[in-house]
């Protein structure tokens, strides 16, 4: 089965569970920015957990199926239209042969995940079909591309988990370098409101708000960072690393988001406001 790309919208990239195990050669893990929505898409589509999907930023994707297919869209309140007919939010949709499927513009959230039963069968790079912001991985789909879909899996996929609650502060664990900041800075970080700036992308969510003052001004030797790391450069304005973050960072990390909060952060648009709070436990 194949899918023909008619339009990609602002940004559509292949994503899967990422490529761990290569950080020592400078390759970031990448993978879906909102992992929970990615996992839901595959589970609902009946795919195995590592199947490749399309991550669509702000809708706009339009594709045509040559054969009947089962598809689902997760992550935002955007929905699929099948030959112009709207379907429901996160509804499993059966698409007839020859139908055109489009992703609408979300009103809430940023990144939608389009899974097709069988998964997108682009050739993997270093064991993963994710394309990261630095270009590692399969080429981005372009209008006119004919994408192959893998064989339909025999076993049903995992049971879908529920969507995380959309509101409330993002939960963090302090560290590894919270001791590089003044007690006032920690208090500010855990109390103040920050705004997502337009310079944000799948590498990092750049925030504007009260700057965080360092207790130590020495230069930190670069060290490994993880998804959800809140790095604070010299201007004091935090950056939350997302899935396509580099393997190391050169500024102290004040705290790390829980995986659930990192998924919620993936759906924040420029202009959105966020607060941080200590995670329980």
């Amino acid at each position, binding site marked *: 089965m194949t899918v023909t790309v008619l339009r990609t919208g602002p940004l559509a990239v292949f994503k899967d569970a990422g490529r*761990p*195990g*290569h*950080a*020592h*050669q*400078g*390759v970031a*893990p990448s993978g879906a920015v909102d992992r929970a929505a990615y996992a839901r898409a595959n589970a609902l589509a009946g795919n195995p957990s590592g199947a490749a999907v399309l991550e669509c930023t702000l809708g706009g994707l339009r594709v045509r199926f040559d054969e009947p297919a089962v598809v689902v869209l997760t992550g935002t309140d955007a929905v699929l239209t099948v030959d112009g007919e709207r379907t429901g939010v996160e509804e499993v949709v059966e698409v007839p042969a020859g139908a055109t499927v489009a992703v609408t513009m979300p009103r809430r959230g940023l990144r939608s995940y389009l899974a097709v039963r069988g998964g997108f069968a682009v050739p993997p*790079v*270093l064991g993963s079909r994710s394309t990261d912001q*630095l270009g*590692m991985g399969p080429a981005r789909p372009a209008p006119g591309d004919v994408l192959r879909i893998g064989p339909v899996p025999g076993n049903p996929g995992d049971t879908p988990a529920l969507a995380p609650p959309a509101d409330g502060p993002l939960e963090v*664990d*302090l*560290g*590894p*370098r919270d001791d590089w900041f003044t007690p006032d800075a920690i208090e500010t970080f855990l109390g103040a409101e920050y705004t997502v700036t337009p310079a944000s992308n799948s590498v990092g969510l750049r925030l504007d708000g009260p700057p965080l003052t360092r207790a130590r001004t020495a230069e930190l*030797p*670069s*060290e*490994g*960072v*993880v*998804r*959800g*790391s809140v790095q604070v450069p010299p201007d004091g304005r935090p950056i939350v690393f997302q899935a396509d973050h*580099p*393997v*190391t960072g050169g500024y102290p*990390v004040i705290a*790390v*988001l*829980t*995986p659930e909060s990192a998924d919620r952060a993936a759906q924040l648009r420029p202009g959105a406001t966020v607060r941080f709070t200590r995670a329980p436990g």
Partner: protein
Amino acid sequence: MTRFLRCGREAVLAEVDDLDAALALYAALRAAALPGVTDLVPAARTVLIRFDPAVTSPAAVREAAAVLEPDGRGQAYAGSVEIPVSYDGPDLTEVAEHLRITPDEVVARHTGTPWTVAFAGFAPGFGYLTGGHPSFDVPRRTTPRTRIPAGSVGLAGRFSGVYPGDSPGGWQLIGSTTERMWDLDRPEPALLLPGVRVTFKAVQR
């Protein structure tokens, strides 16, 4: 002595005294292949240990890593490579002036002392090389170049490095190599893996 710092729910950051200790701990962690550990990121004074929280926990990883006995022989396992370099880089003269030596002497010093890959970063296949001639300590260019061709050999601070692909960059370029730093057809695409000993050899081209 290894200090373990909290780093979220899916990683632990192990901090040691210096680069040699970090490389030794990295080698010991690789050899130990602890259950659930998915990725190791060695750096100047730390090793980030990333794990699958469905398989293990921060406490279990800390305990398992704390009893490892790094023996400092990590480099012996990592192997060595020789990289032929044509020393015709655009910044060779500037580097020589900065160090108050001749360009030939820059080449002699760059080739005369073996380097060690400390860690990878910046781009896939970019290894930060340390341990070269002690006189090397050069500032980055004040204005980074927007495009540096693959294979360019550079210096920055006390590090040397080879650009694996065309990219922007601020290092002082002293030469170039045709050796491929990054090749997806190799089992480990990066030529310069942490702990590998690197010797540069001057060639005419």
